[in-house]
């Protein structure tokens, strides 16, 4: 989100006086952002989609000789983009409400703002349920999630990452956020997601993924080693240890679509098979 906002500000400021110059400036800004350590799959896909969205201004407007007007147009579209993204989470929360009934036991992994917002919304509508959150090492982000859930009065239990197999038999549904949604319908998410998904499948528990549409990435990985390194490691790690990545722990893993039941996005609820079609529509 912040990435996009800074991009829009950039669009308002540049010295470029032609459209091509502007596009190049924007791409440079994107590259700069990719080079920071905060870059993750989400930021990368969001930047790409933002670039596409802003540059697809209809041809008539581009022919306008007044470049200031064109720049204004870019900034306006940037703002429209931002407003739409801000609404994504509430749309997803609304879509998710029918899936939660009372007295349900929900398992989730690590800290995800989308999942948090959806669970809070269901609680606000009067559903009483119990959430189990994995600690999710190495950064202990599950703890933050449990804190936030407890603050709004949802019964929460923090469990060890290794306790997932033990707890799975008493769970009713499993919910993940996603850092990126692939063209296969699979997702990239915090490391550990794949293990939980396989366990859920083995015990016949439904797995739902919540992701905004800006997280759609046009990649088609076939297995873990196929996933591009830029999604798995931070940029600084990639730069410093370019040839010796074997010793590094990846931060994310790829969960193939056969372990997922449904993807809930702001464009609607999809089966993993349908996500590829939607992706194509976004990227053409």
């Amino acid at each position, binding site marked *: 989100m912040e990435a996009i906002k800074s991009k829009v500000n950039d669009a308002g400021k540049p010295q470029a006086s032609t459209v091509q110059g502007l596009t190049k400036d924007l791409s440079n800004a994107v590259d700069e952002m990719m080079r920071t350590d905060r870059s993750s799959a989400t930021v990368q896909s969001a930047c790409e989609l933002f670039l596409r969205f802003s540059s697809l*201004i209809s041809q008539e407007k581009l022919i306008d000789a007044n470049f200031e007007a064109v720049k204004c147009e870019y900034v306006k579209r940037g703002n429209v983009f931002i407003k*739409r993204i801000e609404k994504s989470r509430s749309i997803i929360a609304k879509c998710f409400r*029918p899936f939660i009934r009372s007295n349900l036991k929900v398992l989730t992994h690590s800290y995800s703002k989308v999942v948090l917002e959806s669970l809070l919304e269901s609680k606000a509508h009067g559903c009483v349920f119990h959430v189990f959150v994995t600690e999710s090492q190495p950064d202990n982000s599950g703890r933050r999630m449990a804190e936030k859930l407890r603050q709004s009065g949802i019964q929460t239990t923090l469990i060890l990452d290794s306790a997932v197999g033990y707890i799975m038999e008493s769970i009713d549904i499993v919910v993940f956020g996603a850092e990126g949604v692939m063209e296969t319908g699979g997702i990239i998410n915090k490391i550990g997601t794949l293990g939980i998904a396989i366990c859920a499948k083995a015990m016949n528990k439904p797995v739902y993924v919540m992701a905004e549409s800006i997280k759609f990435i046009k990649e088609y990985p076939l297995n873990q080693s196929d996933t591009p390194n830029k999604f798995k490691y931070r940029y600084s790690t990639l730069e410093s240890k370019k040839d010796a990545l074997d010793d590094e722990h990846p931060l994310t893993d790829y969960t193939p679509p056969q372990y997922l039941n449904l993807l809930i996005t702001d464009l609607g609820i999809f089966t993993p*098979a349908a996500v590829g079609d*939607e992706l194509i*529509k976004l990227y053409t």
Partner: protein
Amino acid sequence: MADQVAVSRLRDRVNLYFHKTAVRESSSKLALRMLSFFEDLVRYAHYETAEQLIAILRAEGELLYAAHSNEFIIRNMLLVVLRGVRDECLTQTSGSDDTLPQADSLNHFQRLWFLPAPNQVQINSAQLRSGVLDFIKEMKEEINVSAEMISNQAGHQLVKTDTVMTYKLSQSGTLKKFFSLFRAKTIYSVDDDPSAPANVISSVEILSTMKLTTRVVLSAAAILPDGSVVAPAGTLNVCLAAKRHSVPVVFCAGYYKLTPMFIPHLDEFNVQGRPTDVLPASEALKFSNVSVANPLFDLIPAHLITLVLTQSSAKTPLHVYRLISDYYHLEDFRQLDR
């Protein structure tokens, strides 16, 4: 105000239709009656723009669906008609017969992320009216021939020497047509009444008979976009037995049963039949501490189904979602409340 009176009279008449029928008619008849209701609305209501027509149809349709929320077909037909209205609108504004607009990529973004601005273009309402009425007539025709068109595909799916198992043959119009047009060598019908044109077996014999079966053909009550199916209660047994013995399961349904809604738990939607079907009233006093349930539907998950036959196509459950966008328009079902 004349149109308000007309609309309320139509509303009363359709509600009466629901109350009069003691036994539920077949789904196709219900679908036809719904289409007639919307057709009359289009014909007699007063509107200037397409937006107004859509608002009227949606208001009446949602009201009816709220009163009878276990009948998905009501909303399915509403969505079909709304799609017809939007298509008609598009055809008229673009001025050509091409129903697929050559939208540029920007429009894709716009349509996916923003609900489009209300149609400002003034459409000739008389032309819109006649266009939509023609569309509804076509849709009705499709319903009438749906059973036959499904049966025409039987030749691709079955051979004469197949042993076929089905469920409650005599209660499904689609299945009756299917088997009358295609005589398989042996047909087993589970839990049917003895007069059915098949070997009737009871549900306890499903597993033992499944060993001899080569195909299972069933009728769906509703098809959901993730490929799962709502079917008459008891069908789940047949499907699980078929999975156990690796027998392909084929579900037949007309397009009016395609429901653009996901059902995570069927309990919220399941219709209960009469408890006296399970426990006769004369025994009720003896069993006063027993709660009698008579759910009418089962939810069959997608992994138990091999093929879904509609009148136009045969699709695997993974690809059923494509049919949804064939028949319904994105804007209408994306913002559905339950």
